[in-house]
């Protein structure tokens, strides 16, 4: 009984930080953002778009740079437009050239990063843009929360309509085609959605960490699941858990939130990779 009281008090101290408004908002941002990233992440991993989403994240450097050149007050819009154009461009280019996927993406990655750094570092002023690299979820505004909510709704709606197509395309684009689905349309629409979500989230989690948030929970969940439903559930569950754990830990450790969340996901990945075979065997035996 005493033990239980101690635990309640302890958990209350963990939640004590929630008396601050910025922590409440950050908690809401994590609750909205991580499930959205989790859903997108499942198909990023299944469709081998990990490198591609990394390029999208890094394209924010060039997007911000273009915004600075154009003299925009908020470079968000130039970043968004650039990421969407890049997403479509990469898909078209890949089909037109039949070049190896990772080589094409490597070229794009190098170009957008170099271009962004060159423009932003003119006159030695890169330091003031370094907040884009790490991001700050504790500074999330009510307006950004509203956008996150809308994006989550859009992703859910897209998932209801297009997830089957994405599953089929991940196995064989030709097979999807024989069922009247266009792999180009499916992949490009997914890439555009990914570009929009990544761009809006850069301010919160940073260019360096955004891809890890997308990829790690799904990568961990793959080891634990036997079908698409359990894959999705595991990914969303691990994402939310790492999100909350990372948020509170970063508060007490005084560390960057995005990176702390990623470390928790990475720990889950290692556990899942080690225990995955045993767990799946158990699940199959039970069913």
């Amino acid at each position, binding site marked *: 009984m005493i033990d239980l009281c101690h635990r309640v008090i302890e958990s209350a101290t963990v939640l004590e930080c929630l008396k601050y408004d910025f922590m409440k908002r950050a908690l809401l941002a994590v609750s909205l953002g991580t499930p959205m990233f989790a859903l997108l992440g499942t198909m990023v991993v299944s469709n081998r778009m990990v490198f591609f989403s990394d390029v999208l994240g890094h394209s924010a450097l060039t997007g911000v740079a273009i915004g600075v050149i154009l003299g925009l007050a908020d470079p968000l819009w130039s970043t968004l437009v650039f990421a969407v154009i890049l997403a479509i461009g990469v898909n078209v280019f890949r089909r037109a050239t039949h070049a190896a996927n990772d080589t094409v993406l490597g070229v794009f990655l190098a170009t957008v990063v170099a271009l962004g750094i060159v423009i932003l570092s003119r006159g030695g002023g890169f330091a003031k843009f370094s907040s884009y690299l790490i991001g700050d979820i504790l500074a999330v505004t009510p307006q950004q929360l509203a956008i996150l909510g809308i994006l989550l709704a859009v992703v859910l709606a897209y998932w209801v309509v297009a997830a089957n197509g994405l599953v089929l395309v991940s196995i064989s*684009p030709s097979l999807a085609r*024989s069922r009247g689905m266009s792999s180009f349309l499916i992949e490009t629409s997914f890439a555009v959605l990914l570009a929009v979500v990544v761009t809006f989230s850069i301010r919160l989690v940073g260019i360096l960490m955004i891809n890890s948030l997308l990829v790690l929970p799904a990568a961990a969940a793959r080891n634990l699941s036997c079908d*698409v439903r359990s894959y999705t559930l595991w990914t969303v569950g691990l994402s939310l858990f790492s999100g909350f754990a990372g948020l509170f830990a970063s508060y007490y450790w005084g560390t960057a939130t995005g990176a702390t969340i990623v470390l928790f996901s990475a720990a889950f990945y290692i556990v899942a990779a080690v225990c995955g075979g045993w767990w799946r065997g158990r699940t199959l035996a039970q069913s």
Partner: protein
Amino acid sequence: MTLHGKAPHTPRVCGHCCTSIDSLTVAFGRGIVLKDVNLRINCGELVAIVGPNGAGKTTLLKAILGEVPYTGSIRFSIRGFICPAPRIGYVPQKLNFDSDSPISVSDFMSSAISRHPVWLGVRPSLRRKCNAALERFSAEHLLKRRLGELSGGELQRVLLAMAMTPVPDILLLDEPVSGIDAKGLSVFYRTVCDLRREHDVSIIMVTHDLPAIAPHADRMVFIRQSILAEGKPSEVLANANLIVSLGSNLWTISQFSESVVKSEDDHDRPLP
């Protein structure tokens, strides 16, 4: 429906369904893959597409699927009416997925035959439908397995079950026997022949396995960029030009073409 040992009956060919391919040309960049291909495939007909590697066989199937741009025309008519989008069942040559993909056989089939999102789970009615489709190919025990765990033969049965759900107008098989052992092979050919008879499906099969397909195919089309020979399997295989062009396979085929001529008489007899 049973697949094996059924009494023979005349194919229910209505004569009004067909796939007409006229002056089909496919080019990638500067390279011409297919040139001026003309082909007509009736319903209930099993057409074997043969030819050396890189001859454009798979490209022909992809053109029929509408996956590669082409000039010329591919038209489908069903019961005498032009049909812009016929039902196509397709068994690809190879799948390109990671073996650790958490996609079960029922997820895979459901994602193709239903609009209900698979990430919300496969509904019992849909699961039963998948199970029934797999049963036809004695593969119902695979329903819950992950796709990456299946052997070549098992995967082939799943793909065929999926291609036949719902029953298509045209069935495209791209080297469907790679990865199947000898025992599975004879079952596979029997299955395909029965499908053709029972459902009046046009079957276009790309294959390297000339000895196995020859007794079953109605027609054989030899392709190398364009159609070099077309006709009954025995005629095509007896064609000297073809044998020369196949080079290393010369011995096998010339030996084999004799046995085909013999076996062609019992072409429509049920298989033992």
